[in-house]
């Protein structure tokens, strides 16, 4: 694999929270145009790895390469502006805002008018707001939330809030999308629909996806590559069918069940 088709490349990442080694010398790469899964038992460090990639947690050592640039020291907002956008395991919806406003907030970077344009509602303001709204509505349509667009976000049921986060992230027009357990709390039918959506995100929107998920069936069905974390360390990575057969991975999961 040539390095220029690697969208995300973490090298030797270590993160320590007090006495807990959340990540230990982790290498993680996501090839452009793929859906790459990150799996592992509870507390393995999956969310921490996404936090390091998105800039919410600083790593003690190692580097984060994004879209061919070293972004280890770049603040979270600048990484998002560079095209790395995420959703959250514990929902972080802007609850008091409307569904549409949530998604329009996702498009923040793309809306181009200054403070004076906003204070005095210049023609530029109207033009850009209309464009932003159209973009947001398109993303809401994409995830199937268009009908709920004027509801306050807190009124949405849990599963719909997950879709809202997805739409909000898409409105930021990312190149890399990081999904942290997007299927948590969804029923079987909703999970099926989500699988279709994530594929369309890769194929139609050409967005590289890194997904953390516990639902093995979903992972095996949609991912092109899988990396397995266990106690902060990568114990395997490869194609889904290889991972399924990997004895170390099976042991890690069985070990968890036995506990």
């Amino acid at each position: 694999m040539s390095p220029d088709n690697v969208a995300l490349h973490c090298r030797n990442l270590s993160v320590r929270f007090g006495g807990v080694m959340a990540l230990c010398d982790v290498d993680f790469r996501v090839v452009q145009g793929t859906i790459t899964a990150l799996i592992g038992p509870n507390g393995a460090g999956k969310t921490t790895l996404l936090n390091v990639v998105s800039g919410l947690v600083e790593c003690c050592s190692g580097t984060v390469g994004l879209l061919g640039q070293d972004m280890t020291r770049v603040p979270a907002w600048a990484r998002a502006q560079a095209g790395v956008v995420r959703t959250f395991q514990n929902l972080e919806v802007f609850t008091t805002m409307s569904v549409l406003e949530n998604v329009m907030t996702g498009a923040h970077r793309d809306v181009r008018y200054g403070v004076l344009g906003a204070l005095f509602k210049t023609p530029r303001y109207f033009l850009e707001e209309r464009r932003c709204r159209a973009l947001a509505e398109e993303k809401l349509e994409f995830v199937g939330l268009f009908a709920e667009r004027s509801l306050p976000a807190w009124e949405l049921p849990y599963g719909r809030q997950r879709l809202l986060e997805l739409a909000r992230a898409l409105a930021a027009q990312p190149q890399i999308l990081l999904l942290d357990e997007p299927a948590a709390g969804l029923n079987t039918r909703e999970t099926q629909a989500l699988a279709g959506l994530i594929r369309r995100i890769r194929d139609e929107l050409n967005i590289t996806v890194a997904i953390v998920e516990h639902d093995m069936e979903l992972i095996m069905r949609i991912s092109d590559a899988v990396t397995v974390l266990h106690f902060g360390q990568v114990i395997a990575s490869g194609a889904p069918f290889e991972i399924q057969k990997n004895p170390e991975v099976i042991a890690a999961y069985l070990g968890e069940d036995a506990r």
Partner: protein
Amino acid sequence: MSSTLRQLTPVAAFFLLVLATPFLLRHDYYYLSILTMAGIFAIIVLGLNLLLGFAGQISLGHGALFGIAAYTTAVLTGTYGLPLAVGAVSGVGLTALVAMLIGMPVLKLKGYYLAMATLGFGLIVYIFFNEAIGLTGGPSGFVGIPVLEVFGFVFDSDLSYFYLVWSMVAVALLTSLNLIHSKYGRALMALHISETAAQSMGINIARHKLFVFVLSSVYAGIAGVLYAHYLNFVAPSSFGFHFSVQLITMVVLGGMASLWGGIAGAVFLTVMPEFLRFYENLEVIIYGLILILCMMFLPKGLAGGVCKLLSNVRRRFGREP
């Protein structure tokens, strides 16, 4: 079309009310001057509401910012006899500059710590007003601030000043309404609810906090200039801790994140003590009681109360055949 209409109706009603008020009060200059003061406070409260109600950042230093603008224009026009325009622009400009310099380090703090830091800033400024006697006149105040004059028109009557102040309230109201319906407004609300999510959407939260802090200081600065040239006299006691707390109370009582509510809160808290004057000794107690009752029964402030009332009325009429 109908949504623009719905937005414009309250604004038009507001303009009519402001225009009519002097006539309704039969040109009673005492009440007119109280409402002028209420308008000056409303301008600060509109800015503070953007900071506190929308962006969720507290400031106990807005009384001081208000004072910096008032003293700046007082000293420049009063002591040095510079043109009023210079005083006004420097007053607002210096306030914004101070807010930026203070905001940069202080806005990294959150919650109680931010409150304490802005409180400390307010105290320092207050002490400065008191101690720099050569410049400010010290505790006894600064006398001899010239009357406001714009393009040859002298605002020396209560009526003209009332209209001037309330036009500025209208400008402040419209600009802040516009702001909250823009990407900046969305970003402020977003960082209020979840800084994590906001920055993950590409919002530079430090910059947006600083922006809204400085913007609210500009509102406070404009109010400070209007205040100085209205009373033609300023004293440190008007810009102390007590006043900063009163501003916060106006925001909360009016309804956090409701710009209309903020104006109502400013008017209510400025006018109420005047009525309570009749009760002499009980004044403070009644004032406190009213505040407590308001917060108990109107948790979303005056604005929330009015909204609830309207929706109740609408429901009742809707149900009737």
